């Protein structure tokens, strides 16, 4: 067996082992039936909730808040990152704030956000956006800064205009870094939305997890968690696909 095949086999073995553990542990009496239930009871619950339409409302609420916050983080983060790279004084000025940014527990400001933005989708979107945007900004700025000097010389020697140099050399060269930022930003905004829904919402997958937990409907709680996991994997995979497409087409 080749090394690559062994690696792939081991990866699947890890997943299978985790699934098996989830199934077996509750059955052999590890943990009580309120805390831990076998996967074979979670999955039917999940399908039932999807089929009955009970899940739709929550999925749409979470999906909507996530899509909005992530798109906002992308459309504000990439231009801000570009400006930060382009205007060195701006970078110099903001650097200490940016590097300590993630030390700020943005989530702790939620009462203020409720007061200012009201009890609606916006406090959630704001928290998720604020969590995600700086990862996008930083990686974009780094990406533009890491473009090899020789590529700009190629552009210069061909008499490219400033706009051509930025759009046809700098931007595509920075794409892998920008996507690193977007992938991080995506994860952060998803976490932001789910965590906010624990306290700031009466809908959404995060709300469903916390509501089910409080009401001892353990199967529903795990069903929601499973759906969040599936959503995160799917989104990451989709963004990876877009990156590969884009990299070959700019």
């Amino acid at each position: 067996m080749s090394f690559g095949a062994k690696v792939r086999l081991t990866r699947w073995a890890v997943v299978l082992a985790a699934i098996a553990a989830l199934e077996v542990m509750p059955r052999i009496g590890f943990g009580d039936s309120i805390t831990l239930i076998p996967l074979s009871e979670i999955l039917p619950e999940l399908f039932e909730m999807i089929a009955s339409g009970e899940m739709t409302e929550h999925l749409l609420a979470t999906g909507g808040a996530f899509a909005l916050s992530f798109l906002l983080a992308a459309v504000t983060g990439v231009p801000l990152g570009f400006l930060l790279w382009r205007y060195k004084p701006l970078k110099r000025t903001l650097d200490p704030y940016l590097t300590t940014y993630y030390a700020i527990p943005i989530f702790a400001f939620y009462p203020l956000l409720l007061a200012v933005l009201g009890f609606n989708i916006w406090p959630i979107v704001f928290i998720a956006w604020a969590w995600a945007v700086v990862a996008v900004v930083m990686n974009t700025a780094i990406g533009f800064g890491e473009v090899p000097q020789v590529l700009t010389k190629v552009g210069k020697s061909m008499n490219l205009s400033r706009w051509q140099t930025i759009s046809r050399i700098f931007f595509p060269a920075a794409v892998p870094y920008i996507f690193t930022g977007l992938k991080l930003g995506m994860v952060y905004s998803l976490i932001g939305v789910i965590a906010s829904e624990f306290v700031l919402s009466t809908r959404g997958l995060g709300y469903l997890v916390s509501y089910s937990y409080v009401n001892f409907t353990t199967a529903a709680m795990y069903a929601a968690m499973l759906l969040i996991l599936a959503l995160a994997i799917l989104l990451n995979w989709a963004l990876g696909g877009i990156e590969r497409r884009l990299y070959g087409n700019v």
Partner: protein
Amino acid sequence: MHIQIKDVRKVFEGRGDEKVEALSGIDLTVSENEFVAIVGPSGCGKSTLLEIVAGLTEPSGGEVLIGRDPINGPHPEVGIVFQQESTFPWRTVLENVEFGLEMHGVGKKERRERSLELIELVGLQGFEGRYPGELSGGMRQRVAIARTLVMDPGVLLMDEPFGALDEQTRLILGDELLRIWSRTEATALFITHSIEEATLLSDRVVVMSARPGTTRKVVEVDLERPRDSSVVSTPEFGRLTGEIWEVLREESMKTLKGQERGGS
């Protein structure tokens, strides 16, 4: 199209009052369709000289003429190939070669035709749809050469294009370059630190001094053209490389001694 380098000087401003003189008065004329190689010890300013000719760096004194035009920025007739990896990893081989034409608004059909022709000339047919990451270092440099030549430059500048490759590959690519160059009408100025490569390729070899760089000696290479790397084993080739080495050795010693004294 010929190149005239007239008393070109370059001084780099360091921190504070520190100044580094990189080039002190270079004079060199490269005639139409001539191939001139420049060899010199490391740090002698040969790459700086090439960038000045390319209009990428401003000289501190003197001037460069391409044909009749004094240089004060990149000249459309001048193409340059760099030592460092300079292909665009997000573009296929064909898209890399098409780049300059695309930027200058040449129509899709024409630029495809011209690019395919160049890809064939550099021997990369069959690799048009590949990305640079899938190619070897030597093949990527051929892509860079094709990308420069597709613009049909009257002057071709090369800064150690095969410098990152091993000696055998370098000589074989030297053969390729001779064949490619003979098909173009370009005047060539080639920087290298390999005496063999310089002698194999050029009509004249300019030996530069240790920093600050000046032209120490010009050696005429009267080996018959068309030639290929089999000339390496001829006594005439040995005599020429010996002659170049004699001067270069002296200059390289100066550089080494300078480094030992704590300079760089």
